[in-house]
């Protein structure tokens, strides 16, 4: 077992760190305060290939591995959770399923523009009545001649109105499985601007406030027959597999938020003086920091291990990284919440003030325990594999 990063990964980390410090950090507070999608940052990330890191070069990507992608999300999230999730949702939830399940025509048509950041991707699974229970889908797709007709809505969609290409999950019929009638679910590629595809209200969120979260509404939205992704009836499998990958991205985001909060807390406790000495000299502070750092490092190991496992999947599609991804997301998200809460506590009153980054980080951390499968869902995935 080798815990040493390769030269490539060390250089990539330095690149992501420099970019995050220079281009992302200066905007983080403003983006949060104004609930503004950082379009200018996305354009810069596109210029440097960050929107297509694990995408093969033949489709306009950078041809790097999942570990490099996870490190990118981690370093961006260290300074801005919003920017981290923009890259994660785009890459893991839109580009990845097209690459994995798309036809060659679909890959050629969509991936190059997505991988070069000319277009942004999103993924629509969640509905008002179907979150954790993905079988509760109400959105329907009916084949009418050469077109699928979509009706229904999706909620809490990351990159919502800013995206151009959407993976949408919908019910295409009822099938019998083991004597039970269940919904047949399929997935589709829907482009912005398609008649009948509109947006609902923008969600006002606790954290990741610069991320564009919208309701997607489909009213007799007609898309070409060939825009089905994978085979009819494969939608549930595609959605679950896509979320396995997405969880590595969110785990990396959670890890970044935790690591960023730790860095700021170390700096703050060295500066802040009480009772005539810096609070870093108090053993309570030292022990808290030690626990925080240990948990961040443990989370990093799980995230990198899951990323590595997904890299193995690329050469051997029989490999499953579902459990590793669930463990990484479960642990990193809970560490993010714990570490940011402690970070605010160690900052005292200043930690509760918006001028200090840890206040934002604590709000940003919470969503990592909820989206792309709650912590409870991760426990279901992990225990399901244990008790199989």
């Amino acid at each position, binding site marked *: 077992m080798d815990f040493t990063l*390769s*030269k*490539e990964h060390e*250089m*990539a980390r330095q*690149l992501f760190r*420099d*970019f995050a410090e220079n281009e992302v950090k200066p905007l983080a507070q403003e983006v949060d305060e104004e609930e503004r999608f950082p379009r200018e940052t996305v354009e810069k990330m596109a210029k*440097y*290939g*960050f929107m297509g*890191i694990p995408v093969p*070069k033949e489709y306009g*990507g*950078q*041809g*790097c591995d999942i570990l*490099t992608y996870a490190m*990118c999300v981690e370093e961006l999230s260290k300074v801005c959770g919003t920017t981290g999730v923009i890259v994660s949702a785009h890459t893991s939830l839109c580009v990845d399923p097209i690459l994995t399940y798309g036809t060659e025509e679909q890959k050629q048509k969509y991936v190059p523009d997505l991988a070069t950041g000319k277009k942004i991707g999103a993924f629509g699974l969640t509905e008002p009545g179907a979150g954790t229970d993905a079988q509760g889908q109400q959105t329907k797709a009916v084949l009418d001649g050469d077109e699928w007709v979509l009706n229904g809505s999706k909620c809490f969609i990351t990159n919502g109105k800013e995206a151009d290409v959407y993976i949408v999950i919908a019910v295409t019929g009822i099938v019998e499985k083991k004597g039970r009638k269940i919904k047949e679910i399929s997935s589709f590629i829907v482009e912005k601007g398609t008649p009948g595809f509109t947006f609902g209200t923008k969600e006002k969120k606790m954290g990741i406030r610069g991320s564009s979260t919208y309701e997607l509404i489909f009213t007799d939205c007609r898309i070409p027959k060939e825009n089905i992704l994978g085979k009819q009836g494969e939608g549930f499998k595609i959605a679950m597999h896509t979320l396995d990958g997405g969880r590595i991205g969110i785990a990396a985001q959670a890890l970044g938020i935790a690591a960023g909060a730790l860095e700021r807390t170390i700096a703050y406790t060295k500066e802040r003086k009480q009772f005539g000495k810096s609070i870093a000299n108090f053993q309570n502070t030292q022990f808290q920091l030690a626990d925080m750092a240990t948990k961040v490092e443990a989370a990093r190991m799980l995230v990198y291990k899951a990323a590595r496992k997904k890299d193995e999947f690329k050469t051997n599609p029989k490999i499953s990284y579902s459990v590793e991804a669930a463990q990484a997301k479960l642990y990193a998200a809970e560490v993010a919440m714990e570490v940011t809460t402690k970070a605010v506590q160690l900052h005292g009153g200043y930690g509760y003030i918006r001028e200090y980054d840890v206040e934002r980080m604590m709000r940003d951390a919470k969503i990592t325990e909820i989206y792309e499968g709650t912590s409870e869902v991760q426990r279901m995935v992990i225990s399901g594999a244990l008790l199989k």
Partner: protein
Amino acid sequence: MKIVVCIKQVPDTKGGVKFNPDGTLDRGAMLAIMNPDDKAGLEAALRLKDEYGAEVTVLTMGLPKAADVLREAIAMGADKGILVTDRVLGGADTWATSTTIAGALRNIDYDLIITGRQAIDGDTAQVGPQIAEHLGIPVISYAQDLKIDGDKVVVQRQYDDRYHVLEAKMPCLVTALSELNVPRYMTPGGIFDACAAEITTWGRADLKDVEDCNLGLKGSPTKIAKASDKVRKGAGEKIVPDSPEDGVAYIIGKFKEKHII
């Protein structure tokens, strides 16, 4: 067009420098980076490549680990990297360094050589012009802007309170200021390619038309008596008075304020 950019791996002096007890730089204690002026020179070359199409070769002299800056340059967009490394070249001052680099450059076709103005670990600003002298080509130093016009380069040379516009026929050498541009980042894919790229490594035997007496510590006339962190010059103050009389009055006032008169 063929462009060679000479770059150097230097210790990051942001936040001060650390010395060994013998007065030499404690390089191990500081992060190694690409010299900022050199990085601006590389960016200038890459912009010329983007605009006109050019082959950009990066060349460095140093320890084997100096290959890291060549890989960084390739990850930014340079085409080839050449590392000049040999024990006999160690301990070189600016004279021996420029002799070595000129010896390496004699093996390469070039239209334009770009070096940084100076390296942040030595701050001499001598190596670039010395290379040009060895090669017998024109040099324009302190470039704050660089353009190509046919077979000439057109350079804005920075001066204290103005700039000069100079032209030189290629082949020539230009020394770049970090103010020349904001260097681009590497790309993730570029990093992977750079790490897989072959770095050409040359030793003493590969240097052309160079005598041993001009190389390494033995070939270095400079002996360091003492080294210290540089005293940074203030930015100064610029004023635009309404009349010469006002200007004189202002200066006299300042002299009095500082008890000079």
